């Protein structure tokens, strides 16, 4: 499975949810499917997308929050998994695309390529629901089950180490940030 295929499989289900992604290929590929004002791309600060998702989920329990993370970023903030597990917001779904490499900086292998198991680490950290999936069908089914469960879930999706040809798009970082903030504000009025 490629990450782009996985994103395409769940794209329609992101429509009315709050989505926070990491930098690089995840951000560029999600934008290639179509940017929406409820998508925020943390284009640096590796490791903190899950922390941002936690901050949003705790602040706005009525909203459904999805974090699209990666193995390189998770490995930079393994302690963050223990904080997620400690507060275990029911409205947070944590997806980790694991391509076993730091693709956007040259494809250097991460520790998941030599056996480190992020789903296992999340489970041991105390995340109440975890899964590791290999195929699109498994990913789609696990994604739906996690949303229905209304319990903090980390899903690790093994994906191929392929990505887009470039990472810079014409969506400026601050344009994205203020648009996303306005989306969250308007979501309050309709809630």
């Amino acid at each position: 499975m490629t990450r782009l295929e996985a994103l395409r499989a769940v794209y329609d289900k992101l429509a009315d949810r709050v989505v926070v992604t990491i930098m690089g290929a995840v951000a560029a590929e999600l934008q290639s499917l179509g940017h929406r004002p409820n998508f925020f791309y943390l284009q640096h600060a590796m490791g903190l997308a899950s922390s941002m998702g936690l901050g949003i989920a705790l602040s706005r329990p009525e909203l459904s929050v999805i974090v699209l993370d990666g193995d390189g970023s998770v490995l930079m903030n393994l302690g963050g998994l223990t904080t997620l597990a400690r507060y275990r917001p029911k409205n947070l779904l944590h997806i980790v695309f694991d391509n076993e490499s730091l693709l956007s900086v040259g494809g250097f292998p991460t520790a998941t390529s030599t056996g480190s198991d992020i789903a296992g680490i999340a489970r041991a950290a105390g995340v109440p629901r975890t899964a590791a999936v290999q195929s699109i069908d498994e990913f789609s089914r696990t994604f739906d089950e996690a949303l229905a469960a209304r319990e903090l879930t980390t899903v690790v999706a093994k994906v191929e180490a392929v990505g887009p040809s470039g990472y810079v798009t014409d969506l400026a970082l601050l344009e994205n940030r203020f648009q996303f903030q306005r989306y969250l504000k308007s979501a309050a009025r309709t809630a």
Partner: protein
Amino acid sequence: MGSSLARAGREGGGRPRVRAHPVLGVTDRPMGEGLPTHPVHRHTPSLDIIAAPMPPVSTSSSRIIYDALKACGVRLISALPETWLVHLIRMADEDPEMTLVRLAKEEEGVGISAGAHLAGVKSAMLMQNHGLLAAVNGIVSCAQLYRIPLLMLISHRGSFGERDPWQTEGGGVTEDLLHALRIAYQHLEDPLHVAHRIAEAQTLAYSSNKPVALLLCRDLMWEP
């Protein structure tokens, strides 16, 4: 939103009791347990290098700081424990209107505060100055890159009067680091200016969309 926010933020499981520290009153981990002993040159270091007793962390100053944060509308606090912050963290933990997020490392708090801000909740970070050192990349490439107002309360360890040798390097670089990061800051030294300075720091954070820092100083945080 306050009460539901606070309920959502409570921890899922129980947590172990903290232990009493023989000098400071409360600490977070057992002292001196599990250390290897050398079979030949065994030496039991003395705890009495500085004989004068240490005064306790000030409950009254901590209360003034906490009340000032509440008065500014802060409803989420992320924190990593340290001695000077014990009362502040306890006050946040006991307040049903406050969401307390206990961190594994301070940099997480930057992401959590960024998320809270975009979601419409005012937050503050409580950390030691060594926590500031640990959070630098998050401050630069999340809070500054994305123009996030970040209210950081930093205990200024390692300055004059510091007895713990391990705190003395961080104290010397804290203000230089804040200057290098172009983060506006003030000292909190006197209970009389605490509320005013916290309110003004938050005002600047929001008008500039930038991080600001308040250095919690020894004269404020310890009983005289």
